[in-house]
């Protein structure tokens, strides 16, 4: 069983890699991840750093400088180097995108698996819960949570993760309804395995594929939502550099400093688009009707 799963995975990757746009998007994600991981080494006021300014180094004489040789992407209203802030801001986006998605994957998989495996009352209860959560327009719910609790990176991550698991739960539930009827599930039960062992050890590996692909879309939407919250002032508290936070200050300088709204927004867009394109690529690679 393991070997065929591996082979399947390799085949999936090969089909995914055939598409040039998907490859480019995957490379872009890799690049942003590396930058986020090594941000303090790349941009800081220490010697040897390729970008010689820290994200919070205020220099009032240099305020609102356009992009140039000294400040490649220009400076903000406090004279902070925009390139350095954007590099450090990538850490927020990548952290929120990945951890919020992990939380919603975990919660969604758990609920979806229980609903699909036990059916009956458990399924009814979980399906109702999903419907209730979906009724709240997500920005209203997220703003209420981040405003009622103390705003911080982890409040945002938890709020995003705990409100966005519904699609994952629906996908996993559907897959479980399918695989629980298969012979190997019957065999596992007949050989005396308990429910938990059947769910996590035997069924989950066969049900988890589609939801892992969906996770890529989840990261994109988490990054977009976090930046919107930070833009509105209810996300990552200042002075931490985040792409949405930079855009909220750019709002006051639209007429005089075009570089302030342009670069952080472009990065949010490119990163979210890259995750969406990768998701599309995997979806096509999984879909048998697209195979040549």
């Amino acid at each position, binding site marked *: 069983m393991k070997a065929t799963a591996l082979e399947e995975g390799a085949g999936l990757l090969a089909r995914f890699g055939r598409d040039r746009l998907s490859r480019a998007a995957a490379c872009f994600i890799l690049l942003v991840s590396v930058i986020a991981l090594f941000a303090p080494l790349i941009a800081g006021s220490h010697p040897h750093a390729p970008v010689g300014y820290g994200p919070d180094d205020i220099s009032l004489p240099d305020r609102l400088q356009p992009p140039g040789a000294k400040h490649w992407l220009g400076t903000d209203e406090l004279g902070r180097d925009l390139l350095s802030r954007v590099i450090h801001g990538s850490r927020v986006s990548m952290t929120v995108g990945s951890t919020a998605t992990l939380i919603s994957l975990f919660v969604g998989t758990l609920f979806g698996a229980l609903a699909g495996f036990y059916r009956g009352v458990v399924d009814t209860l979980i399906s109702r819960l999903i419907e209730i959560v979906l*009724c709240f*327009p997500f920005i209203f719910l997220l703003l209420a949570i981040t405003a009622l609790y103390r705003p911080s990176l982890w409040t945002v991550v938890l709020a995003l993760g705990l409100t966005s698991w519904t699609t994952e739960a629906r996908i996993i539930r559907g897959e479980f309804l399918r695989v629980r009827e298969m012979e190997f599930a019957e065999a596992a039960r007949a050989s005396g395995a308990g429910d938990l062992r059947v769910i996590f050890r035997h069924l989950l590996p066969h049900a988890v594929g589609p939801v892992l692909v969906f996770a890529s879309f989840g990261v994109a939407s988490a990054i977009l939502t976090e930046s919107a919250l930070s833009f509105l002032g209810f996300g990552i508290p200042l002075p931490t550099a985040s792409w949405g936070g930079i855009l909220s200050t750019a709002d006051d300088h639209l007429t005089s400093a075009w570089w302030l709204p342009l670069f952080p*927004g472009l990065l949010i867009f490119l990163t979210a688009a890259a995750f969406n394109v990768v998701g599309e690529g995997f979806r096509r690679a999984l879909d048998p009707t697209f195979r040549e």
Partner: protein
Amino acid sequence: MISYLSRRVVHALLTLFGILTFAFVLIHAVPGDPVSFAAHTGRSRAVPREVLEAARREYHLDEPIAIQYVSWMRRMVSLDLGRSFVDQRPVYEKIAEKVPNTFFLNLAAFLGASVLALAMGIASASPLQRSRRRGVSFSILYSLPNFWVALLLIEVAAVRFDILPLYGMVSDGHDELSTAAQLVDRLRHLILPAVTLGYAQFALFARFAVTSLDEVITKDYIVTARAKGVSSRGVVVRHALRNAMIPLVSLLGLAVPLLLSGSVIVEQIFQWDGIGSLYFQSLLARDYPTIMGLTVITAVVTLLASLVTDLLYFLVDPRIRIEEGR
């Protein structure tokens, strides 16, 4: 039919009960009580002590949690949303007066997006070939952060070229204009917010329209229509479109929460005087009755939209009726 409808309505009532309970849990999981939350110095001035004491009595906050829950439910069912901490006016009234502004903005965005999406679906559908890659271009469109699009639109259309108003719903001196000029003035103010709110909807609808038409176009009855000599365009418009519209009905239910979410951001940026702006101001003022009132009301509106969607589905798709009848 009656049994289907009544079952659906009972489900919706259960969900409504869940929504109210969920909102109650959300407030009561906050450290301290919701009234002391308002007393913290927020970004605007603190709420007067008398108002807080009155609120504490009104919400039965000194009594056991079960009594609080029952009184919360009773008040919600009788549409009593309490009074605003900011100006002591009933929350229900504050929300009701903003609804028309948000409604027209959302309607403009929704109509624009669906008309464009349908046109695009028809233009690109062809009974001769299936599309492969169109999904990608749409996902790129909804990777654009809407607040950034708003900033760019303002920068280009309002600041650089000065062809559209920067923000607000009417110009200064709107009242002195003739009726026709007033209408033009309102429409000019509507364009940028509606575009910002609508483009993501357009991406969603267009994607649905294209895939739905693509699927229908391979059906046998399309081949039959072609064989009897209907033109390629005629097949799409007369035969495929009707059947492709069925799944599109379900988008109505999806669109409502998305539009409402978008309204908060768009109304805030363009200073549009609707419920999104009201929500944002209430958050800044920590006006807890208004925050909770809007959270509950938008959820109920979404629930109603999904109920209407299901009923529409029932009306347009005879297959569901037959299955239900069995």
